[in-house]
């Protein structure tokens, strides 16, 4: 008789139950084996580096804000100062105060060189740079 190609029919529950019983599907609990397997896995993966997620997070926030400002800044004129810009705002020493100074502040903060560099300072400079007013001298 040619075997059917269809999915075979169900097995009566009494037979399934007995099959499971013969299979002794009761789990064995053995903590020593569990410990041995998991310790082996920890040793095996132990050669891999452990990443530093907190460092990444510190970068992400100010850099994210700066990236958003950069996008806006390409659409508007950066503030250009008459004469030499205030040294405080020209963070990268380029002679101009622009979004690159915001990025420089963000990098300084993320690298731990945070003297005077607060989130508020970064945001304040970023907002001033992307202002769509005519260029004006900073107070």
């Amino acid at each position, binding site marked *: *008789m040619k*075997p*059917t*190609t269809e*999915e*075979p*029919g169900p*097995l*009566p529950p*009494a*037979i*399934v139950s*007995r*099959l*499971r019983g*013969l*299979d*002794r*599907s009761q*789990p*064995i609990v*053995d903590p020593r*084996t*569990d410990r*041995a*397997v*998991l310790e*082996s*896995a*920890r040793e*095996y*993966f*132990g*050669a*891999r*580096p*452990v*990443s530093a997620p907190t460092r990444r997070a510190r970068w992400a926030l100010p850099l994210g804000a700066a990236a958003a400002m950069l996008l806006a800044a390409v659409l508007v004129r950066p503030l250009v100062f008459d004469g030499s810009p205030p040294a405080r705002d020209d963070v990268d020493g380029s002679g101009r105060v622009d979004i690159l100074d915001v990025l420089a502040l963000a990098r300084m903060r993320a690298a731990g060189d945070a003297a005077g560099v607060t989130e508020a300072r970064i945001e304040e400079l970023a907002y001033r740079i992307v202002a769509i007013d005519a260029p004006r001298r900073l107070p």
Partner: protein
Amino acid sequence: MGPIDRRSDEELVAICNVGDALEAARAFEVLYRRHRDFVLRVARRFTRDRDLALDALQETFTYLLKKFPPAGEGLTLTARLPTLLYPAAKNAAITAVRKARRYSGAADAVLDELPAAEPHSEGEPIDAALAALSPERREVLTLRFVDDLSLAEIAVALDLPLGTVKSRLHLALKELREDSRIKDLFQP
């Protein structure tokens, strides 16, 4: 015990492939706890011995571990993980039994199939009918109705053509249906 980890096996395998030391070890632990009982059940089928089954369990997960870097090239799941674990557990169990028999001086009988079903009493017709099935047919029946593997998954796990799996299962059911001791169970 912490909350249930709902990440899929595919996600956990991906972390084991490329995650850092801590992430990979945690992901592997989840895989172990999720599939441990299945592997142990398979191992017991072929060893009929608790201690040998535990040895086979450890060997099976060592085999899985070495699929990942640094020793392995990484694992890509093309089917559910039990279809990969079944042959590994079966082979580990057979190896464990062979080693034990070698040490005990017992004859190295054919081991590549399910052991004969346990002795049964005359009052257990189902047991008698199941014991009468060939090991190949009983193996397919067990994978289908105890381990809930699909026919395609059974084919992968046993490294057999799908048609062979269907044929064995069909013939196993036919044999049970025609067994005078239990044929009434198939009546609607």
